[in-house]
């Protein structure tokens, strides 16, 4: 019974944290984009425009909810829901920090610690395609269908190198369980480098980042939803809160991908050479809070990286996107896997 209550508290906490991060991301994106482009950005709604997400939320809630006449009502309403659900569900297995021991009871800062965490993430990545295609088809608009199908093709093409790059990390650490991957990134290897995923798998990290940008439909891969190309693609016909769910869902997707990058490649809550558990005490509340804050700091760096790259690089053409995915990333990912297994076998034979 007490387990159920703890799990419920964790679910509510992580869900509201995710929504809060997505809301703040809208502000970060607008202000970061503006400052890069030599203009001020929103600076009237509160100090430095920090209340702008609140105003945007109120605006989206009070707008009229228009459903096109010939559009299929069931599919039109179902699209945003199917887009948001896999994005939120992926947070169930991401470890936000190390454990807290209260009165003999171990509370992990993770909603569920299943043995196949990595496969669960891959499955949800595959399910993320539905929201796009159902939303595009249900709008009864040529541009929506085109944008939806293009986006779907891009998503399923880049799932393969995404999964293969992550598979390299799984091979190195030897487990599918996300908490064990995070725990195994302690200490150093080869003497001076920390035991993080990015040093074990540099090529895999680059492949994962490129594929993650494609999975999130962000620049430079955002042709399916670019306003000047295809009139907003699959979310052309949506207004008010349904569009809000699509835009929010995109930011939640980005947060999920940043959290995955940090968990697999950047040592989830570990500082580079310091072992925090030793001087803060393993399992105390302050250690739990410190690990959570370090995780949040790393995730916010990657969120800023998404915004930074968006306003640096122009978008790819669709055939360039497909060529990159199938002809460059997949062979490189397979090559990465081959090299990783070679090294693991050599280490096995040398180690005895």
């Amino acid at each position, binding site marked *: 019974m007490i387990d159920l209550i703890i799990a419920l508290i964790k679910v509510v906490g992580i869900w509201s944290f995710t929504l809060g991060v997505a809301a703040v991301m809208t502000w970060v994106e607008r202000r970061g984009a503006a400052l890069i482009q030599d203009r001020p950005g929103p600076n009237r709604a509160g100090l430095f425009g920090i209340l702008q997400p609140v105003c945007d939320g109120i605006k989206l809630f009070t707008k009229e909810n228009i459903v096109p006449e010939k559009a299929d009502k069931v599919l039109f309403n179902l699209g945003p829901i199917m887009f948001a659900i896999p994005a939120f569900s992926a947070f169930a297995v991401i470890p936000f920090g190390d454990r807290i021991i209260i009165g003999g009871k171990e509370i992990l800062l993770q909603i569920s610690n299943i043995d196949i965490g990595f496969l*669960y993430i891959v*499955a949800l990545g595959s399910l993320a*395609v*539905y929201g796009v295609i159902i939303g595009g088809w249900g709008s009864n608009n040529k541009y929506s269908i085109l944008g939806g199908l293009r986006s779907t093709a891009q998503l399923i093409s880049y799932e393969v190198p995404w999964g293969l790059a992550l598979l390299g990390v799984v091979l190195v650490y030897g487990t599918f369980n996300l908490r064990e991957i995070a725990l195994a990134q302690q200490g150093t290897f080869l003497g001076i480098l920390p035991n993080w995923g990015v040093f074990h798998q540099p090529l895999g990290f680059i492949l994962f980042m490129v594929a993650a940008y494609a999975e999130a439909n962000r620049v430079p891969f955002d042709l399916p939803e670019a306003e000047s190309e295809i009139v907003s693609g699959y979310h052309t016909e949506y207004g008010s809160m349904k569009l809000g769910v699509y835009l929010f869902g995109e930011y939640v997707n980005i947060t999920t991908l940043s959290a995955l990058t940090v968990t697999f490649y950047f040592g989830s809550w570990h500082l580079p050479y310091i072992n925090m558990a030793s001087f803060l005490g393993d399992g105390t509340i302050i250690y739990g809070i410190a690990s959570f804050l370090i995780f949040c700091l790393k995730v916010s760096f990657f969120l800023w990286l998404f915004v930074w790259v968006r306003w640096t690089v122009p978008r790819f053409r669709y055939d360039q996107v497909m060529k990159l995915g199938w002809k460059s990333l997949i062979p490189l990912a397979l090559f990465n896997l081959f090299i990783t297994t070679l090294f693991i076998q050599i280490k096995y034979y040398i180690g005895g």
Partner: protein
Amino acid sequence: MAIGDLYFWIFAGLALLAGIRVITSKEAIYSALWLLTVFISLSALYIHLRAPMIAIFQVTIYAGAILVLIIFVLTLLTRPDDKMGEFQHNVSFRGFGALTGILSTGLMLVMITGITEIVKKAPVPADLGSTGSFAKYLLNNYLIHFEIASVLLLAALICAIYIAKKDKKAVTQ
């Protein structure tokens, strides 16, 4: 009724209801979405049988790749006024369908009685369903099946590429 039984009845009922709706929906996309519901309920039933790997594979492969392909075909390649109803009025089709349905139901009932005999007597290993034992059995005991399946997929891939590739000489005419 224990909570495990309740879980089973809910998802099994959902799978049956969704299965019936697959074949009785008017729109093709609705059938595809009900099929998605079938796949997800089956995945939940696999978890109930202590096979989490198979559950995740069901979602990833069936719901995540095959069904996406089916929906692609449905959205790209259907004409708007496709009259599926013409096939439904044909008496010989309906008779043939009924006969096949009755025969396959009979076959399944025979198989179920056979399988329950085998399953009751098999010993359950301690690490049933974990990744390590799954990999061990797949790559040691069932290696031939694994290799033949991969060769079959490769053959299908090559055939698909050959069919889809345009003849270069015919294009330049």
